[in-house]
């Protein structure tokens, strides 16, 4: 392999082309293969938001025995936890737990008025919105006023004797329930 000078190296290299290019292919493939293996952790890292476990979106409402023998909707404060990467925020929200048959999962309504987002309150046997006079039945159905839909129900479940709810925001003013963001 050792040549006497540079020019000779080039001349020789030319005649040696097949061998040199085969080696080149071999090295190229090896480099590509090694690079592919090395890029596995990088790709996993970059794609990690795709495989990230969804944080627990269920909020605790309270033990089920508090909602067993309701005669009227019960207002309940819940804490909604939002995960944003390495940050977490806690937001206080209010929901209404409706009376239910024993053994059933109660219906849970968001207290946010589907009209313009004021908080609906329970008084004199009806849900009333203090801002613009929306009125809803004890089951949350629209009875009167400017709202275009009934009160929004939330997904609820019972886990180990406690009522949990998946709190979500819905777009106001629309005739049907559309999740916001």
């Amino acid at each position: 392999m050792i040549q006497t000078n540079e020019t000779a190296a080039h001349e020789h290299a030319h005649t040696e082309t097949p061998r040199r290019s085969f080696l080149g292919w071999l090295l190229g493939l090896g480099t590509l293969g090694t690079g592919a293996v090395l890029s596995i952790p990088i790709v996993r890292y970059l794609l990690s938001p795709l495989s990230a476990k969804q944080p627990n979106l269920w909020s605790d409402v309270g033990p089920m025995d508090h909602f067993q023998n309701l005669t009227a909707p019960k207002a309940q404060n819940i804490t909604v936890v939002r995960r944003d990467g390495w940050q977490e925020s806690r937001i206080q929200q209010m929901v209404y737990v409706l009376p239910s048959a024993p053994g059933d999962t109660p219906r849970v309504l968001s207290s946010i008025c589907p009209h313009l987002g004021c908080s609906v309150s329970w008084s004199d046997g009806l849900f009333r919105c203090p801002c613009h006079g929306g009125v809803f039945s004890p089951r949350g159905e629209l009875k009167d006023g400017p709202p275009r839909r009934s009160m929004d129900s939330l997904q609820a479940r019972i886990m180990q004797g406690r009522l949990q709810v998946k709190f979500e925001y819905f777009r106001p003013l629309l005739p049907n329930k559309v999740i916001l963001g």
Partner: protein
Amino acid sequence: MNNKKQHAGFYGWLERRIGIDQMMHEALDEPIPGGARLAYVFGSGLLFLFLSQVITGLALALYYVPSTDHAHTTVAYISKVVAAGEFLRSLHAYGSSAIIVVLLLHVLQTVFYGSYKGRRELLWISGCVLATLMFAMAFTGYLLPWDQKAYFATAVGTNIVGEVPGIGGKLELLMRGGPALGTLTISRFFVAHVLLIPGMIFAFVALHVFFFRKAGAAGPISAKPRNSGLPTTPFYPGQVIIDMAFALALIAVLSLLAHFFPFPVGPRANPADSTYLPRPEWYYIPVFQWLKYWEGSRAFLGVVLIPAVIVLLFVLLPFLDRGAERRPWRRPIPVGGVVIVLLGLAGLGWASHSQDTKDPSIASQLHRQDEAVVQYMKQPFKPEESGGGATATGEAKESANPMVQAGEKLYQDNLCSACHGVAGKGGIAAPLSGIGSRMSSQQLQTLLTNPTPKMTGGGMPPVPLKDGQLKQLVAYLMSLK
């Protein structure tokens, strides 16, 4: 090449526009006097490690936030939550040590081979600049995780800068961005570590390679510094294969280390911890130990003069050792000098280590610190409570006043937050923060029971609370900032 071959197809199309053949010739046919050798791998090894640091560093920058509030959480998040995050961060952390090791080997090879001779002064000096930049990278990167180790090592490191007579105090203030380590220090170190120094490294690598190609490879120790007259082989394939094998070995060792001994994040920096014993990373320990011996009036000699003279002699080596002789045993003074300095540094490192292990109180404290890191790594990731207006925490909890706390509950239970926002930050209706500075509690109470027409028009009902509860609500509202 004179006998230019006409390429066909897409390769030919590219070749006529880029000149790939010429570029490949420039890159790969560099003549190496005496042929390829294992001893020549360290330069390309360093370049490879630097590129690995750039790639892993980019990955880390995807999550890292340079501020005392978030730095530690984001690094813990990378290590504990993000897929392959711990592995990539470990590669980056071990990579910095690997760079120092290979840098040392590269310098030793150059000194033993006398390959700074023969119009290679600028090549040598650009290398000295690169070495300094690499140490600066290691120093600035060390602070960024903002754990105990990072904080205290950097506190000591910047204090050492403060020891420099005359300008030391100002220099330390400038480095830290203030009298104490804090958010300004992190920003400074971050900008230096991620933008400034890497940019300089790219520039000096280009210069270093340019000077190297201009002077040519020096070849074995028996060769003359210039025009060796030895037969040459091209860089490709012999040296390329050896260099690639070395790079593969480096990344294999680093990957195994990163996989089996992941580099940990320690507990968050706690400047109030007076028991913490700072220890820098291993490559700074000899300097750390050296500084222990120089106190008071002799400090100038030990901290400034001696290191300055050693560094100056080292940088000027190609000007001082000028003969054509390259064999190390015929150049006892420069080679011996470098060996003595290195042995001295190793001795200082050993002295530091033996002092730490012999003193039982130090040894047990260092053990406690290591144990704290292990324990911290075992805990699951704890997300940070987000600031800003979205949370009811923070401000509201500031007060332990039971009136205010009861009032906060009333505020929530009566859905005031629906319009006025959580913690009175504002929503559909006006924010209530700072209302205490605009009116007295008596005025506020009157407004709540008898809202003005403007308020009722906006949807604000009279507050139907009894006097006791009303006072609690007012107390809460007055506390809003």
